[in-house]
């Protein structure tokens, strides 16, 4: 059984069909990169997997639990950590509390244990010195790295990352991507929406291309940048368009 099974999902906003009878599976391993033109429903797909949007038809199972049952949502969200394009640090607490609050409240971790774990992850994202900082004392890239660390605190089985570098300048983008590369090498399972093709080439094992609410192609990285690109005019055009 795959970790995430998206089965014939249709999602509409009013008259707009954003996901059209969409099906795909994700396994417990590796980095899957999801690409496609703007407005094709990439964010919507991630939000549906995490139960932030209700689906109109079909089903999504995360470790066998359906998103259609509200009671499963907490568990599903613990299984899949999510980081958004616009960073959301909790402004009323410092960095350390941002990280420890959820494990303490939800996993009943002791404060000391949570802080140890938080320091471990802060170190991993290169921000060990910032534990007492507030969100307004952090750069965009630092905030995004903290959001990643905060998601990891819940020990998710997978990270859902939605264009988490697209609001950052190239230097900060690189900082964040380096963190992701390291995590990938350590075996953290990720599903990323990103247009950073250098990142995809470096760590992705699988590439999904979607357009118009449908999955256009689902192949390994090597095939994608090799044969698929050569044969598929649309994908070639898209890759050229994003400067690849």
């Amino acid at each position, binding site marked *: 059984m795959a970790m995430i099974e998206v089965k014939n999902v249709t999602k509409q906003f009013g008259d707009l069909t954003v996901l059209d009878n969409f099906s795909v599976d994700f396994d417990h391993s590796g980095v899957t990169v999801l690409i496609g033109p703007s407005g094709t429903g990439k964010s919507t797909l991630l939000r549906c997997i995490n139960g932030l949007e209700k689906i109109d038809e079909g089903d999504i199972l995360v470790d066998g639990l359906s998103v259609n049952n509200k009671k499963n949502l907490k568990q599903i969200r613990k299984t899949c950590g999510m980081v958004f394009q616009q960073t959301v640090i909790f*402004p009323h607490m410092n960095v350390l509390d941002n990280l420890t609050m959820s494990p303490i409240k939800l996993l009943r971790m002791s404060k000391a244990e949570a802080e140890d774990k938080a320091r471990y992850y802060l170190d991993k994202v290169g921000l060990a010195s910032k534990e007492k900082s*507030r969100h307004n004392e952090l750069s965009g890239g630092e905030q995004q790295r903290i959001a990643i660390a905060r998601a990891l605190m819940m020990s998710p089985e997978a990270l859902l990352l939605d264009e988490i570098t697209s609001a950052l300048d190239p230097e900060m983008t690189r900082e964040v991507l380096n963190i992701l590369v390291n995590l990938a090498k350590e075996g953290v399972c990720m599903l990323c929406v990103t247009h950073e093709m250098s990142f995809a080439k470096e760590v992705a094992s699988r590439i999904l291309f979607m357009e118009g609410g449908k999955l256009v192609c689902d192949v390994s990285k090597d095939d994608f940048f090799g044969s698929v690109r050569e044969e598929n005019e649309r994908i070639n055009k898209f890759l050229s368009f994003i400067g690849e």
Partner: protein
Amino acid sequence: MQDVHTIGKYADFAVGDIRTFAEACGVTLSVTLLSLLIGTVIGIIFGLIRCSKNKLIRFLPLIIMEPLRNSPLVVQLFLVYYGLPVMAGILLKDYTAAIITLSLNTAAFFGVLVHNSILAIPVSQWEAGYALGHGKFSTFINVIARQALRLLIPQAITLYIGQLQCSSIVSLISLRDITRVGQLLSVRTMRPFAVWGIVFGLYYLVSFPLARLADYLAKRIDYTY
């Protein structure tokens, strides 16, 4: 002790008037504080119900809040004090009528403040809470409420100051608050300027520090967020 009620008979200030003013301060403060306390509790309930997703439930508090926000407080007081006994046969003491009126009026305005403060927190904060595995309640308590509170507090203090001034209308149902004692004493002493000067000073004494506190907290919020 010189009694304030010797109206018509002239008598200058006496030492006993200090006590009269002190008692009046007690009445004003107790009416105001009790009303603000009750009004805040009911207002929080109104504000939370106003945040409901269900349209009908969300509408219900408005039935009480809107009339209270859109009519003069003094009319509400007369309605409760003079109207209720006739309508429902409920005879209220002046003190009780004053507190009921001021509490409900405060609740109506406080409910709006609570509702607006919660709405002012971006949806992305809710979603960040959900995405970490918090339920609605946990997200509200741990993420939203604490941010909303910082927006709410300075506005609440400003409302409280306003309600303190408005409490002076209870003098119209002869409750001996600061304003009422001012009326009686100004007639008795025939020194309106001195008496109303004192009354003015007493309200100001309580309000001014509160106003400064509200300003301070409001500035601090802009600074940290």
